[in-house]
């Protein structure tokens, strides 16, 4: 029996189908008699619907028209709270809110019809900012505009201020960000009242869609079927919103009796679907003169948009990551997710952590400067050590060594020599160079008790030919699920890569292995794949058909004999928390995550202080992620995440106009391209994690967390100006540089 796949860059499981064009994305699917669906949306951010009129010149009798009145079950998107309607009924709470659905066989006529529907909406005063929402200028949600608040207490923060040698305060802000997956959102639905509802589409979480459709149609689980089609990227943007589109397509299909396809174009996808939560973080930090953190008070607020969606859990992750990989005996975190009349913000790679980590890693540079230490020395004195506790009281049991990661990153980036050289050479230059870094961590899997509630299940089934099928709802969205599951299952069973098959996620045939989010697919679901594989092996060994030291041929013979005499050969595995894990939802105390990935990222930048152009010239990403299952996919995740974070830091500016995204086109929402991205040098440290498959942890979101603060710290190092918000636009850099119009270009 051989184990040889984990740690090797095997070809992607679905790679051939993708590069040869055989992979079928939702818009490649065409059903007989299919209609196209479109969504009529509110342009008013907040108001009361007074009437809907259908303009002239459109053959309305040919159209299927759906409003809230046509909904057979509940008019809400079932997720956490039940506040977001599928179709606005009476009130609208954000621009782009869906009000009417239309379907017609002719795409072009459909678009004209969509433009001919007039919504008469009596406008109410909207709320657009975190401040206005907190000040309750208008009550737009619940009693106090708060979707959720948390408070974390460790030690006694109140008594540290009096004995602190330094108290440093700061406020930091981050903007919204669009996920920009290559494939826009889309769904096809077939819905027949007697038979139930089936949808095909681009998604991360088939069982989220399943749950939402059950409520929308009032159907039992077995009458709703959700099938993932090939999915071109997600980044969190296909976590919750596909439930909305699936419901819309299904409502049109239900009423028309025909299959209905809804595909968003880029502009609709950018404007109407979820984006990253904008944030505001305030820090107040007490430090001793020997550079030790004494107390941290953190006020973290995110803008959730008009409905709850996933804001409580985004807030939770952002809150727990807010104090970073440091030890501080006294911590108070107060965090709030507030309502505004923007389209709901939602899941996006990092899930709250990039926001709070940006604030912390900018703030700690300010603290270091205030007490006269270098950023690296200040961090060395405060990195969390094994045996110490986090803000939620989690004892670090693994052999974390942030100091080592920091030293390695500084050496690999030539940090010390370069900072010294740049300091010498920058003087008198209009183009100034600088180095900056950030130290951070990312918890893998759901927060707190989340994984226990999910209780994910994976099933493996062997065929008489000795092939093994993995049955899971975890989706391949470009990140490599199919490939790593095959590696894990094959190595656990000592089989070849090609003898593993991954079944397409389809709620009619795969168990619920949970959503494909939260850096959990490899670590949590991969572990279930491994356990189910070992279970399969045990069954065969127990039956006496599988000898010790078997070959793939021996495995095939054993499967054949087992199935002939006992019937189907299956094995399933359900999530069990690692021993010793405790979490209290009420007090927000305990082991927030089974484990964390740890990292230090270093950026080198050039800032043109005359034209405000910023280039990232070099990037070093050092991280400890447990065992690396697939080195090429893993490095690809890091490089992609860093590139996405470069966009977050420097380019991707969601501009709001009366609560609508004003630049919802790729010509005006600017993302980095290959020429804007530096060489990203990726280095892994591998400390096997006992409860991950072959020792692996999660890493998908990690790279999104640290690159933006590293870059802004480097801008500060280059220019001496401190920037507290991202994205850094030329005009904000100009303000920071306090360039007057009379300034004359030097050199």
């Amino acid at each position, binding site marked *: 029996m051989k184990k040889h796949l984990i740690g090797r860059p095997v070809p992607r499981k679905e790679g051939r189908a993708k590069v040869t064009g055989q992979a079928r994305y939702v818009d490649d699917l065409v059903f007989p008699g299919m209609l196209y669906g479109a969504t009529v949306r509110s342009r008013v951010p907040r108001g009361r619907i007074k009437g809907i009129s259908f303009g002239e010149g459109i053959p309305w009798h040919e159209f299927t028209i759906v409003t809230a009145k046509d909904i057979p079950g509940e008019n809400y998107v079932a997720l956490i709270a039940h506040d977001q309607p599928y179709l606005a009924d009476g009130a609208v709470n954000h621009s782009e809110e869906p009000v009417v659905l239309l379907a017609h066989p002719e795409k*072009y*006529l459909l*678009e*004209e019809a969509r*433009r001919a529907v007039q919504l008469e909406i009596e406008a109410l005063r909207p709320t657009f900012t975190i401040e206005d929402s907190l000040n309750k200028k208008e009550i737009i949600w619940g009693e106090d505009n708060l979707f959720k608040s948390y408070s974390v207490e460790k030690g006694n923060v109140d008594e540290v201020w009096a004995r602190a040698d330094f108290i440093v305060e700061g406020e930091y802000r981050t903007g919204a960000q669009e996920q920009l997956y290559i494939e826009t959102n889309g769904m096809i639905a077939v819905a027949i009242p007697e038979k139930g509802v089936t949808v095909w589409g681009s998604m991360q979480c088939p069982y989220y869609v399943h749950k939402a459709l059950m409520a929308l149609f009032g159907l039992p689980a077995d009458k709703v079927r959700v099938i993932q089609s090939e999915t071109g990227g997600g980044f969190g943007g296909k976590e919750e919103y596909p439930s909305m589109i699936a419901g819309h397509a299904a409502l049109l299909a239900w009423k028309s009796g025909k299959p209905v396809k809804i595909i968003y*174009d880029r*502009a609709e996808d950018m404007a109407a679907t979820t984006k990253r939560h904008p944030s505001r973080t305030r820090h107040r930090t007490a430090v001793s003169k020997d550079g030790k953190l004494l107390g941290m008070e953190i006020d973290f607020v995110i803008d959730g948009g008009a409905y709850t969606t996933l804001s409580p859990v985004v807030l939770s992750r952002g809150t727990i990551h807010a104090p970073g990989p440091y030890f501080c005996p006294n911590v108070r975190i107060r965090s709030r997710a507030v309502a505004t009349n923007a389209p709901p913000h939602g899941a996006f790679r990092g899930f709250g952590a990039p926001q709070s980590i940006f604030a912390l890693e900018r703030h700690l540079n300010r603290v270091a400067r205030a007490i006269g230490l270098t950023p690296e020395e200040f961090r060395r004195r405060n990195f969390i050590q094994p045996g110490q506790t986090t803000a939620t009281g989690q004892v670090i049991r693994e052999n974390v060594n942030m100091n080592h990661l920091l030293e390695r990153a500084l050496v690999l980036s030539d940090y010390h020599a370069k900072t010294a050289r740049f300091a010498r050479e920058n003087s008198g230059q209009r183009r100034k160079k600088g180095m900056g870094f950030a130290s951070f961590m990312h918890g893998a899997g759901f927060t707190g008790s989340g994984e226990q509630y999910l209780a994910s299940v994976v099933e493996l089934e062997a065929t008489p030919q000795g092939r093994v099928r993995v049955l899971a709802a975890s989706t391949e969205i470009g990140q490599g699920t199919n490939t790593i599951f095959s590696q894990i299952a094959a190595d656990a069973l000592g089989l070849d890569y090609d003898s593993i098959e991954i079944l397409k996620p389809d709620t009619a045939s795969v168990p619920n292995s949970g959503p494909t989010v939260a850096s959990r697919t490899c670590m949590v679901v991969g572990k279930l794949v491994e356990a189910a594989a070992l279970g399969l092996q045990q069954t065969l060994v127990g039956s006496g058909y599988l000898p010790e030291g078997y070959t793939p041929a021996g495995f095939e013979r054993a499967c054949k004999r087992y199935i002939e005499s006992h019937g189907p050969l299956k094995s399933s595995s359900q999530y069990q928390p690692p021993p010793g894990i405790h979490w209290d939802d009420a007090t927000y105390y305990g082991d927030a995550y089974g484990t964390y990935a740890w990292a230090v990222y270093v950026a080198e930048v050039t800032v043109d202080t*005359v*034209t*405000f*152009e910023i280039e990232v010239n070099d990037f070093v990403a050092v991280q400890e992620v447990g065992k690396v299952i697939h080195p090429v996919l893993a490095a690809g995740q890091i490089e992609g995440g860093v590139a996405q974070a470069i966009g977050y830091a420097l*380019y991707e500016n969601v*501009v709001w*106009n009366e609560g609508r995204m*004003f*630049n919802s*086109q*790729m*010509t*005006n929402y*600017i993302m*980095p*391209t*290959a*020429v*804007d991205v530096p060489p990203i040098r990726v280095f892994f440290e591998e400390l096997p994690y006992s409860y991950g498959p072959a020792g692996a942890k999660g890493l998908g979101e990690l790279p999104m967390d640290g690159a933006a603060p590293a870059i802004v710290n480097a801008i500060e190092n280059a220019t001496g100006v401190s920037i507290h918000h991202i994205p850094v*636009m*030329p*005009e904000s850099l*100009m303000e920071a540089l306090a*360039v007057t*119009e009379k*300034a*004359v*270009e030097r050199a």
Partner: protein
Amino acid sequence: MQAFEYAHPRSMTEALPLLGSRWGETEILAGGTDLLSLMKNYVVTPKRVVNIKGLRELRGIRGTPEGIYIGALVTLEELRTSQPMHEYPALAQAAAGVTSPQIRNMGTVGGDLCQRPRCWYFRSGFGLLARDESGRSLVPQGENRYHAILGNDGPAYFVNPSSLAPALIALGAKARLDGQNGERYVALAEFFVIPKSDAERENVLQPNEILTHVIIPEGAWELSSATYEVRQKEALDWPLATAAVALKMQAGKVASARIVLGHVAPIPWPAPEAEKSLAGQPINEATAARAGEAAVQGAKPLSGNRYKVQLARVAVKRALLAAARPRSIGAKGGV
């Protein structure tokens, strides 16, 4: 996109009668890099689209005694790499400034000159002049970080998006416009106009005319020229400010200068004060900086684009310094 009739004429005689006499009825398709997105976003909804890619007479670059004729269908990539353009660095650099190879390979010279403004209001269906119900422009107090800092007395606040126009104007180029009644020639400096109503366009082209050629006058090869663009990002984006300069140098001093700014005004914006400041001067840091200063003298930034004044000033300075550097290929003139 709204359904439309598609015409694919093979000659100018076939093409011209297909064009409508009013704006909005027909649109001309060449590279399509701008038109398709305008149509997809319902900013324009033509009844007929006339594809002129079949008009062979609009292809190619050729030298004539009057100057260089550049066909409207010449792609930006052809322009950038063509041998004659080595004599006109400002133009080759402007073409190279369109940093997407895909756009350079599809986009044409005629399309670059006739593309519509990138103004977010215009592209979001607020109309060319982005006025509210009372007729006031939404731009001066709105999202104007990329809008005009010069020539912005209204009613237009957008910036001319052409990459090539500043360089072509600096080189003294003219456009040939063909209509059913024959052709006419317009200096490119006179081609662009500031519209006074939403019904007008940003240039003097009539709805039933085609811009067929651009002509760089004989003798322009003697000029030392350069284009400098300031941009936020290297690829797939428009510059924030551009300056194109063409200098006639005599014994190391400026005999005459043309300086034209791009992306700062509703039309390519000439800078006569800057030109005057250089008369009889050598090009060096000090004179170039002074010209940059003079170029933005009349700038009136809007609420959110003060930074562009600085960028325009720097663009002029850097373009001048670049033009004064000896050329590596086909060097003629220079200092």
